[in-house]
């Protein structure tokens, strides 16, 4: 799980080109994505914002290799992944992508540590090594003291922290969060967003889907989706703290520069 292993170090983490997604509902074709092109570079903190039904989750699912585009290409770190088989895609999800969901998606009656060990289990890592890494990840999100707690013994914010630790434990290239604060109150939302800032400052690439502007504006770059197409791509007014040498531009660019092309075909 070395980052950039053998791949072009300058290649974007995510390179999506002309992706469409059409659902066939009987006679009617639902165009969830109408041709989306998008690059996300290492170390970026990107928010995807849009109204409900605009296609955010569809885009997320394609980025997360949970769903396949109807057309278009998709590469992670320069490697074409859109056409890979089910099993290879599972491996890439396991290694490269960490998921955070609105409803936390923790297993019931399972300790925080066991939750966080789960992705390692699928990576073939078990035993003390897995335990150590799970504890490290939980410590990183501020739950080092609660590794034995089960979801029903944790607050919503703490549960989402467990989910974030679970997403981070395989040291992925990218953290994908779909409405991560949608089920949290404003105080807890602030805490989770602070945690995202912290992780971003440590060099993590984040993509956060939200419909709330207050959440989106924490990101360095805000992509606006409407009716299956990208209609805006801008760097935020207050860019998050400058990061890492790997981040080629992003935070050093002037504010409110126009987006790198968002092509709607």
């Amino acid at each position, binding site marked *: 799980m070395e980052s950039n292993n053998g791949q072009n170090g300058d290649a974007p983490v995510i390179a999506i080109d002309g992706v469409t997604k059409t659902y066939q509902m009987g006679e009617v074709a639902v165009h969830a994505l109408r041709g989306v092109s998008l690059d996300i570079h290492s170390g970026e903190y990107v928010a995807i914002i849009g109204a409900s039904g605009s296609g955010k989750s569809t885009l997320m*699912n394609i980025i*997360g290799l*949970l*769903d396949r585009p109807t057309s278009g290409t998709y590469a992670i770190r320069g490697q074409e992944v859109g056409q890979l088989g*089910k*099993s290879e895609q*599972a*491996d890439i*999800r*396991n*290694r490269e992508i960490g*998921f955070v*969901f609105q409803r936390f*998606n923790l*297993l*019931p*009656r*399972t300790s925080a540590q*066991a939750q966080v060990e*789960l*992705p390692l*289990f*699928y*990576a*073939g890592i*078990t035993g003390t090594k897995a335990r150590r890494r799970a504890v490290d990840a939980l410590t990183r999100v501020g739950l080092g003291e609660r590794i034995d707690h089960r979801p029903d013994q944790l607050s919503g914010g703490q549960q989402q922290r467990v989910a974030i630790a*679970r997403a981070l434990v*395989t040291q992925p290239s990218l953290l994908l969060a779909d409405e991560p604060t949608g089920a949290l109150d404003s105080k807890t939302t602030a805490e989770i967003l602070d945690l995202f800032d912290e992780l971003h400052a440590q060099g993590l690439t984040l993509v956060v889907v939200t419909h709330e502007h207050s959440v989106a504006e924490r990101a360095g770059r805000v992509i606006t989706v409407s009716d299956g197409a990208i209609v805006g791509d801008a760097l935020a007014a207050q860019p998050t703290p400058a990061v890492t040498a790997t981040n080629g531009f992003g935070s050093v660019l002037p504010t409110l520069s126009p987006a790198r092309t968002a092509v709607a075909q």
Partner: protein
Amino acid sequence: MRMLRYFPLALGNINVNKTRSLLTMLGIIIGVAAVLTTLGIASGAASSITSEIEAQGTNLLEVSPTGGGQGGTLTMADARILGDRDDFPQFAGVAPTYSGNATLVRGANDAGGQVRGVTADFPSVSTVEIADGRFLNAVEETNSARVVVLGHDLAGDLFGSENPIGQEVRIAGDLFTVVGVLEASGGSAFFSDDTTAYVPLGVAQTRLFAAPRYRGELTVSSISIKVADGYALEQAEQDVEVALRLLHGLGLDDDNDFSIFNQASLLDLAGSVSTTLSALLGGIGAISLIVGGIGIMNIMLVTVTERTNEIGLRRALGAHDRDILVQFLAEALVLCIIGGLLGIGLSYGVAALLTALPGFSIAVTIDAASVVMALGVASAAAIIFGLYPAIRATRLDPVEALRYE
């Protein structure tokens, strides 16, 4: 073993919902217990029948005329010739008997029974044993004395708790003096001699039942033969057959006019009956196991549906088809194995209980082979019935699964 990693996971998931897991296992528990208990009863019954047959002696032959006791072709002459130790050293004892049914009366008590005319050496060719008094002696045999030895139950019926020895009973109008009482034969009603009365052969043939003659010789209703030590039963049986065919002047095309019965062949019969019985009972048990397996399938289907969201999550975290498949198969397997073990425990409990039950004469014996078989069948059921739900789990679309509430 990569597979093995899934078992702690499966145990955890089963532990999460103990009540349901137990209810799910119930079918397997009962199925396994039913198979093992019924097989245990069958094998217990078989061994008790076997020991009962063995108690009747396995070196004994009994020749009887074809078509029953009266009017047969088996005579005193046959018995005399077979009893010649010079010609037939392979027979340690040969005893003709003549039986009929009569009512025994003593005061106000009467009892129906078989009255068997025998020679003084009858005990040596049978398994009767004296409990009280003595058996008929040679003098009484020669003189056709009016003496009788009573079977255990017969003595009880006629004399209650009184000592019958020296007392008199009336058989077909004649008074007989009781000289002995037999031990209870211990067997089931099947093989019981306990309601038989033994009188001197001559008395039965002439006085009581007026045995017909064949070629000038008094007929007999059976000849009991004990095979001498060192001679094979089957060979001795053939020798009897050859001799009697010769004596009866049967041609090559004639059927035997007698039949020879030996306890060993009864053992074979009992063996084959018990095999059939085991197969039958085991089959019924296996059906209950299948029903248990279907129960597992049912619950696994429910589990897969309930945990759709979890399956979606596992997909997102990098689970392959194989991981999902093996996870649910392992769960079904663990359910079946735990259920199987509980069922084995239950069957031992039921076996102990049945065996301890007064009036239940069979010692229920559960052998290791059927335990292994039951566990094997339970595991096979798990894999067969767990496969479909597990495949269903792998077919779920990750996106749909994650969206599932």
